[in-house]
Each structure stands twice: as C-alpha cells, then as structure tokens.
C-alpha cells in the first residue's frame, strides 16, 4: 500500500463519510486561486491520471506529479464556466464506479479503473459536464506527460538547437526517440 492510499484509507476510516464534499479535518481542503480541492477530489484526479498514464517500466503520472500540473492549468488557464463544469462533472463521475462496481473509484482495482475510464473512450451518453471533466483530466494528463522534462529528454528528445533542416528525409532513417523538429 503506498502512502497516498494509506492516507486515503485513514481518512475513510476516521471520517466515515469521505464522499461528502464538506470540509472536515479528515478531508482537508487545498485552496487554489479559483476553487478549492479536497483530498478526495485530489485523489480522484491523481488516480485517473495514473490510470491514463500508468507507471510501467517508466515513470507514470504520479511519479511525474501530473496532478499538480492538471490543477494548475485548470486554475490558471480554464474559463470560469469550464471550471464549474469540471467540478459538476466530477460529482457526476463519482457515481459511475458506484454503478459499475458498487464502489468508489479509489477502491476500484487498476483494471476496474481502466474499465470505468474506457467507457469514455467509446460511444456513450454521458452528460456534457461529465465529458468535460473527463476530457479535461485526460487532455491535461497527456499534455503534462508529453511536455514533461522526463518525456522530452528520455522518450522523445526535444532539441532546442537542431541546426538543420533536411527537407527530404527518408522515413526509414528515422530513429526512435528523436524529435525531428
């Protein structure tokens, strides 16, 4: 059990009602410029990001702290109505794992989490807010991952100075891992 799960479980045990959106000592709130986020919401976003970009033999969303990036972008770069849709959609989202697996997303196994999120990747009839919530988390997770220092130095190498332009470059000569402009 990692530290995060331990804290969350502790909160569940002590609080007994961690799904309530109220601020309790067991569900502390972090204040951002345009909204507050409690630890359950933080956990949900982190778990979703980790499900989208999981740790494999390379770092995943949690290792790269994509949660902080997602929330910063949501706080600084999203319109007020999009932030509202995000939190409204998040509330609706919470019902989905309950309906599918009779438990919270936090309590789902990795496989169950994947199947919850995969319902968004297929045809569905989810509400606009729920789609906005999911698409924001996914979009920012992928954006944060592909623009992370790790990804841009170890996976697809970003070159500040290529010093070249080969207008005709044979595809067969492409090397994996080098970004060609």
């Amino acid at each position, binding site marked *: 059990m990692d530290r995060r799960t331990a804290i969350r479980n502790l909160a569940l045990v002590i609080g007994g009602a961690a799904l309530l959106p109220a601020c309790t000592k067991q569900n502390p709130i972090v204040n951002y410029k345009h909204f507050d986020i409690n630890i359950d919401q933080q956990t949900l976003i982190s778990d979703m990001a980790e499900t989208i970009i999981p740790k494999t033999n390379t770092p995943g969303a949690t290792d790269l702290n994509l949660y902080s990036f997602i929330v910063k972008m949501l706080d*600084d770069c999203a319109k007020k109505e999009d932030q509202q849709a995000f939190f409204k959609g998040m509330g609706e989202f919470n019902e989905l794992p309950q309906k599918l697996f009779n438990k919270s997303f936090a309590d789902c196994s990795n496989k169950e989490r994947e199947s919850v999120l995969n319902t968004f990747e297929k045809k569905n009839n989810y509400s606009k807010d729920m789609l906005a919530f999911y698409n924001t988390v996914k979009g920012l997770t992928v954006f944060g991952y592909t623009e992370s220092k790790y990804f841009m130095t170890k996976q697809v190498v970003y070159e500040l100075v290529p010093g070249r*332009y080969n207008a005709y470059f044979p595809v067969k000569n492409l090397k994996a891992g080098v970004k060609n402009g």
Partner: protein
Amino acid sequence: MANLNIDSVKERTFDAIVIGSGMSGGWAAKELTGKGLKTLMLERGRDVKHIKDYPTTNMYPWEFAHRGELTEDIKEKSPIVSRCYAFREDAMHFFVKDDEHPYIQDKPFDWIRGYQVGGKSLLWARQTQRWSDFDFEGPARDGFAVDWPIRYKDIAPWYSYVEKFAGIAGNKDGIAELPDGEFLPAFPLNAVEDYFSNHVKQAYKNRHVISARCAHLSKPEPIHFEQGRVKCQNRILCQRGCPFGGYFSANASTIPWALKSGHLTLRPFSVVQSIIYDENKGKATGVRIVDTNTKETIEYYARIIFVNAAALNTNLVLLNSTSHRFPNGLGNDSGVLGKYVAFHNYSAHISAEYDGLKEWTTDGRNPAGGGYIPRFRNVYKQETDFLRGYASGFSAYRGSKHEQHDIGSGFKESLAKRELGPWRVGSHMMGETIPKESNFVSLDPVKKDAWGVPQLKISVDYDDNDEKMKKDYLEQLKEMFTTAGFTNIKPESNHAAPGLDIHEMGGARMGNDPKTSILNKWNQVHSCNNVFVTDGASMTSTSCQNPSLTYMALTARAADYAVKEMQKGNI
C-alpha cells in the same frame, strides 16, 4: 520651459532625430550615423539589449509554467493582444498589453504593438519579398488611391543594399512579379511542397510555389559576422529574441551597428508628444517628449527628423503635431493625413491531407515556414470582379499518429513511438486591401493617454472587394488542392478584425501631388522638407507582399537623400 535648467540646449541638439527603434527606425539610425550624423533615437518603451534581454530564449518547453499557454487572467485583461498568434507565454513580455496604451475602436481593430527598443522587429514573421512594377503601378492602372511616385527601378538598388546587410534566404526564381534579390541559400521545399509546386507549374501557366524568402542567415557572409550574428540554428523560437542573431532584428543588427559608430544616442522611455514646428524658419526644429520615468517634458532639437514610430503611431505623432502653419497635423495641407489606411486581409486559410509520398518526412525545422505563392490574380490584366489579388503561404508537414481513444500502458507507449500520420498541408491568404478615405485614424477630441497625448481612434474595416477576393482565394486554392490530389480539404474563413495581420499601412502616403498626399517620392513631407516618414505610414497602397523589406529599402533610400540634401544646404 520646464527643462531649461536640466541641460543646455546644446546638449539636447543633434544632427538627426529618429522617432522609433523598430524595423525602419533601426535602419534610419544605422544609415544616418553611418554618414556621420550625430543621431538621437527615441523609443517609447524600455531598452532590450541583444541576447541579454531575451529572458526566455534558452528555456525548454517544460520550463514554462503553463507550457506556453496563456492564462485566463491575461486573456481577460488583454483580449486584443491575446488574439495574436505570437502572444504566448514565451514572448508575452515583448507585446503591449491592452490596458497599457488604450485606443478607441470606432470599428473593431486589433492593434498589435511592441513598445521596446527593437519594436516588432523582434517579433515579426521574417518573410521578405520585393515589390515589382506590377505592385507600384497598381493604383494608377486600377484607378484607386494615388499613383506611387516611385517605380521598381527607383527602389531596386536599395532592396539590394538592405538585403545584403539583413541577410535574406531565397532562390532566384525568375518571376517577373516577384523580383529576385541578393539571396543567401534558400531553405528548400520538402517532398510535398515540391510536389505541389510541380503540380501548380504544370496546371497553371502563371502560378508558382516557391521557397518562402525570409530574413534568416542560412549561410552568413562576412558582413553578418561583423554584426556579431551567426548562422540561423533552425530553432524557430524567433519571437523570444535570437541569441545567434539568426534572423534580422533591429536589436541584433542595425541598432548595435549604429551604436558602434559612436554617433548614436539611444533614449528609451521617451514618448514623443509632437514634432516642434518653427513658423519663422518654416521647418521642424525638434521633438517634444515625455520621459515616462520622470514624467518630465523635454525638447530635443535636430536638423532632420525621421518618423518611424510604426504606421499608426506615426500618424498619431503627425496628427498631434499642430501649429499655426499646420493646424490639422504636420504636413497636412491636403487633409489626407490619417486617411487611406489599409492592411492585409488574412482572414482565410485552407487545410488538407495528402496520402502520397509517405516514404519522406523532414528532419530539423524550417525557419522559412515552407512555400510562398506570389500573387497570380490580376497581375498582367484585370481578370476578376475584384481589384488586385493575394499572395498565399503554403506548407506541408507530417504529423505524428497515435491512438486517440485509448488509455493505459499501451496508449502511453504509443505516445513515444514515432508513428507518422499522413502529410498535412495548409495555406493562408494574404490579400491586398484598397486604401479608402473612409478607412482612417484620427485623434480623440477628449480622451488622452497617460502622457497627455490624445488617444488614437481607429476606423478601419473590410469592404466588398475583400469579401470577393477571399471567396476567390478559397475557390482557387481548393481547386489547386483538389487537382493535386489532396483530400479532406477544409476551406476556412474567419472573422478576425483588421489589425491581426500586423500589416497596417498608410495614412501619410507618398504621392506626386501635395494636394493628395503627405510625402514626396523621397518619403519627405511635401510641406516640411526636413521631416521624413519611412515606416508603414508612407505606403500609398499595400500590395500583398510582407511589407518590412520595403520599409527597410525606403528608409535607407530616404536617409541617403536626406544627407545629400543637407550637404547641398537644401535642408
């Protein structure tokens, strides 16, 4: 005089004053100091020293808090400048925010400005094409504006002169309507750009797709090394300022050159209120500024004055320079000052895909941006129901492909794989607009800016000709794309206000007749012969080339003339 006890008149007297430090002001300073004139360059914003003042130039993408994106706070506070393609997290500091210098939009106009030493020359898109007589003869042939007082032969040597110094990459394409210049090696077209170029050549007799000509040092010459500039490194992060001096900017090129002469005094934080006109001498004697740090009003004096404040601000300075002799603005006997403002119509683009040539891609980056299609409409004769025509950008690239609708470890891996998608192609329109009396700028009678200068009121709009031309652009490009075998063709028209093209021109136009123009063929104010205007304000018509190269050439030509006239005692 508020400033009598600050320094002596002598210390505030120069041979020449240049108002503005951007694309054309930098050239004025370089030329005038090069001819030995003690020159004062006034810049309303702060100093930006080459390399030292490019704070983001070596930053990696992940070092930007928002990875390049604008925050909602900035967009809400500055909606106008936020619409500019180059106003992003890495170069925001080089743009004027909306609240920093308000203006009045009689009609919607996105006025994009760069108030610092170097002005917008730090930020420009670096595309450089010469005009030909098909452009200079346009107004006379097609019956609009007034006849240009110059022809290609008058400016051709000056194009050569500035091109050699600035460094222009391009091919000698041998196209009459887009004369060749003094070129460094071009950045080549890629496989699909070449394919399209060949297709167009075969399908149409007078249409060409060429390598875009641009102010980048593809292969620097000794004159560029002498400026401290080296080869372009293909970073395409130009808007941050280039530590290599790989593209031409006043900061990397003309200003340090002028400073090296020992004849230049550069004064940032100096907002010009007006040009001082001496009724007895019948000429301008200097410039009145406000020091934006001390709020003092100070006068500077000189024998000649070059106005290079950027097109609309040049109009503002002239309109605000009133005297008994010129109650409606300096040199404005004709009443046309501020009028006949025009711009470039950038409000259409078209994109598509190409399914062939999949064995090719590109490696590195192309600072020229790809291809350029010179104007092919109404060149040799009038052939459409609209006047003039458009140039077009054209570029092709291969995007990467990964599964969009997926999550998890397989999806994660696919992000790092270099799976190439089909070639994507795109073009954007750069249309000539017709200068009209009804497109004008004026001074607001009441509202002033923080320095006591009246706010500029901008009343500029598209017209029917622009709509017809846009329709034609989309039809023609669609046809060219279709016959080339491109698929998924998407013509798109946007409703951007004028201004976002950042090619506003006119208001103090050149012409033969003082009754209908402000400047003569030497960019000299008809009725005040020691004042020269050599930026975008001087343009009689806009044609459809990117204008900066022409401003540079006009400036060098006018400076040469001004100094000769001074030597003859005529000024």
